[in-house]
């Protein structure tokens, strides 16, 4: 009997490609039309502070595609090491870097190498301790017990293997570490037609 995860592997691969494509499109064409709100309007909807949005690079703000505000309850402190899972164009990672300061560190993880380059470019331009690793949230490319806080914004719902993602977050957190994540949940099992449609799933 095949493992249900193995059976879904081809669809998962298609889904990963669609996720990369869709969120790259948000970054490349922020004035485009998507299933979800994005950009400064979305960030303001979720009570991102105006001063953050004024200070952050326009490319990061315009490409914001989160579903809430993980900073509301993250309580980030100077010196902390933060993982931003699914860091995208980097707005949440940038805000986190301001909170933890020069004695802290922010590590973004994203599927899309182009997004990681954006985060790294901002870090280089501003001297903040921020880096980005290309990788999957199902196999976070970080050592165990290495981060103080994990944040994520509208990302975990995109995985077929949410249990694995949560286990990975648990693994990389130090004992006593914490999470502050915002994500999409559903009260009912999604229909197979939705599950099989990468565009709908990635939205």
């Amino acid at each position, binding site marked *: 009997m095949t493992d249900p995860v193995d059976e879904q592997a081809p669809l998962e691969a298609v889904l990963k490609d669609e996720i990369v494509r869709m969120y790259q499109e948000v970054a490349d064409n922020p004035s485009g039309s998507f*299933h979800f709100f994005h950009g400064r309007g979305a960030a303001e909807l979720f009570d991102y502070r105006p001063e953050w949005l004024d200070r952050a690079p326009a490319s990061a703000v315009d490409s914001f595609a989160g579903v809430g505000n*993980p900073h509301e309850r993250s309580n980030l402190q100077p010196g902390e090491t933060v993982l931003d899972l699914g860091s995208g164009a980097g707005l949440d990672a940038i805000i986190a870097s301001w909170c933890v300061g020069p004695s802290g560190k922010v590590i973004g993880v994203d599927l899309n190498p182009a997004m990681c380059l954006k985060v790294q470019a901002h870090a280089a331009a501003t001297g903040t301790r921020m880096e980005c690793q290309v990788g999957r949230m199902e196999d976070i490319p970080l050592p165990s017990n290495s981060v103080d806080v994990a944040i994520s914004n509208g990302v975990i719902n995109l995985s077929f293997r949410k*249990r694995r993602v949560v286990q990975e977050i*648990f693994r990389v957190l130090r*004992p*006593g570490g*914490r999470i502050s994540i915002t994500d*999409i949940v559903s009260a*009912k099992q999604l229909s197979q037609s939705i599950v099989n449609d990468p565009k709908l799933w990635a939205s």
Partner: protein
Amino acid sequence: MFRLLEESGFTRVRSAVVPRFRFRKESTQNSAEAYGVKAVMMTAVKPPD
């Protein structure tokens, strides 16, 4: 998701609905409502040693 966090060993799991989340396209929002889709904020702690 709440259950996954607890089963993975997290404690002090808390969640709250993100009140103003909605999809941009009306058809997507209607489908989302039919499935009880919403955005939530979750916090949790990995137990100390």
